[in-house]
């Protein structure tokens, strides 16, 4: 069974076409990276997969459940979302909770897990992301890197079957970036979760995922092995990954 199936998905905001007839499949345990120019619809695609937004056309099936209307309502998605972890680009940490409270939140909302077990799992996760000793810090006291690591701990504490990462290292220094990608890779090895990650840092992303898809003007124009992404046959992808100024991408953007 696939972790994720998108069939002819289209999404518009007003008159702007953001995703245009996207079809995509992700096998259980597989890891796919999404890259593309700014405003190409990468984050929107993640939100559609999480059921946070609804497509205008097409169907989305996540972990065997169809999450597009009219099949489901918001109230029906709660149980499925407990099987999905998501790291938001802007962290989205709860500012009314401290670090430990944020990480414990998904476990507490599952219900039925003893408080001692929650505390143990939260402590283990915070150790894994290097935040041991910061349990009682409030979100406003954290640096960007610490917020990102808290978000990763929250996204992975419940051992989700599908994890969605939206720009896991945006705005971080290269050393912290490498640490975070090592952490994500180790975590994926541990849980065997399926991963869909959006990132602008293609080199680091290629260390985490098996395949990379290139999203351009609302369409997936290329999907291939992550290791050889720099030598992709599509000139658009090659130019984007290599960061070259001259090429079809520059000509298209003008």
């Amino acid at each position, binding site marked *: 069974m696939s972790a994720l199936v998108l069939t002819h998905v289209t999404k518009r905001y007003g008159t702007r076409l953001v995703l245009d007839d996207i079809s995509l499949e992700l096998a259980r345990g597989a890891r796919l990276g999404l890259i593309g120019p700014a405003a190409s619809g990468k984050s929107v695609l993640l939100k559609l997969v999480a059921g946070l937004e609804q497509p205008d056309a097409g169907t989305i099936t996540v972990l065997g459940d169809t999450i597009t209307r009219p099949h489901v309502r918001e109230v029906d998605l709660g*149980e499925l979302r*407990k099987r999905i972890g998501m790291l938001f680009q802007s962290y989205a940490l*709860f500012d009314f909770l401290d670090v430990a409270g944020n990480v414990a939140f*998904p476990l507490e909302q599952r*219900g039925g897990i003893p408080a001692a077990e929650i505390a143990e799992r939260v402590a283990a996760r915070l150790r894994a992301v290097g935040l041991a000793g910061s349990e009682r810090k409030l979100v406003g006291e954290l640096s960007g890197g610490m917020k990102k690591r808290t978000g990763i701990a929250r996204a992975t504490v419940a051992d989700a079957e599908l994890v969605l990462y939206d720009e896991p290292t945006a705005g971080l220094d290269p050393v912290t970036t490498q640490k975070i990608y090592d952490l994500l890779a180790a975590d994926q090895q541990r849980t065997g979760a399926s991963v869909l990650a959006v990132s602008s840092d293609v080199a680091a992303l290629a260390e985490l995922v098996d395949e990379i898809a290139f999203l351009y003007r609302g369409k997936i124009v290329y999907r291939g092995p992550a290791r050889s992404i720099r030598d992709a046959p599509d000139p658009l992808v090659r130019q984007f990954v290599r960061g070259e100024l001259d090429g079809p991408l520059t000509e298209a953007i003008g």
Partner: protein
Amino acid sequence: MSGPVERVGAAALDRLRAARDLWRLYVSTIAGLGRALARRRDHAGPPRGELGRQMFHIGNRSLGFVIVTLGFIGMVVTFEACLQLSRVTGDYSTVGGQMIRLVISDFGPTLTAMMLATRVGAGIAAELGSMKVTEQIDALRMSGVLPVDYLIVPRFIASVLMTVVLTVIGTLVMYGAGGLTAWRSFAVNPSLYFDISLVRPRHVAIGVLKAVAFGAAIPIVAGFCGLRARGSSEGVGWATTAAVVGSSFAVIALDFVISAAALWVTGGDL
């Protein structure tokens, strides 16, 4: 380029959609109340003590504001009433009786709710709007939490309860301040002013009904505005302004509807 007709039509459609979404939020909140009552103690939901915290924020923190405002309004209204009477008949015997009827069934709940609409409505919209633009609402949803159950329902219950409590306090303060003014400024005998023999159970029922309706409307309208916030701090500012305007308007509109319904039910004998 759209013409004026298209723009008016688009604006009208936008208002209709907003009204539909507001209604949906109200229905979801009532459904959330049912889920909260049916929820097991060990299951997902707002943190323990959240209802008490909201009651404190909505009730205790508004107490001084309501007392001062309604006290002054009670003084001004009574002073004006006595002043007009002194120019016409000079008979103050009915001032207290008419004042208490008016305060119980109309001024007390409406003015209390108007004060709460500004203070509480703005607070709820700013808090929820800020959570919306920082994706905290989406993070709640990703944890399997319904934002309505977690954020709106506790505020809804607290607002209904505390609006009734504050209305009772505000009514007493307004009536008492009026009595003090009548006595000090126009030498109206307090035993004459504080004559409540004209008050009927229906006046109390209308006042309580209004307080409950206003208390229910404020968090729904303010929460709706907060959850619709877009963008960044500008969006939160818009949501806060819309919440104050919307919840104040809701109070006035509900006051009109309930008063009209009461007149119709009693055949004008209020």
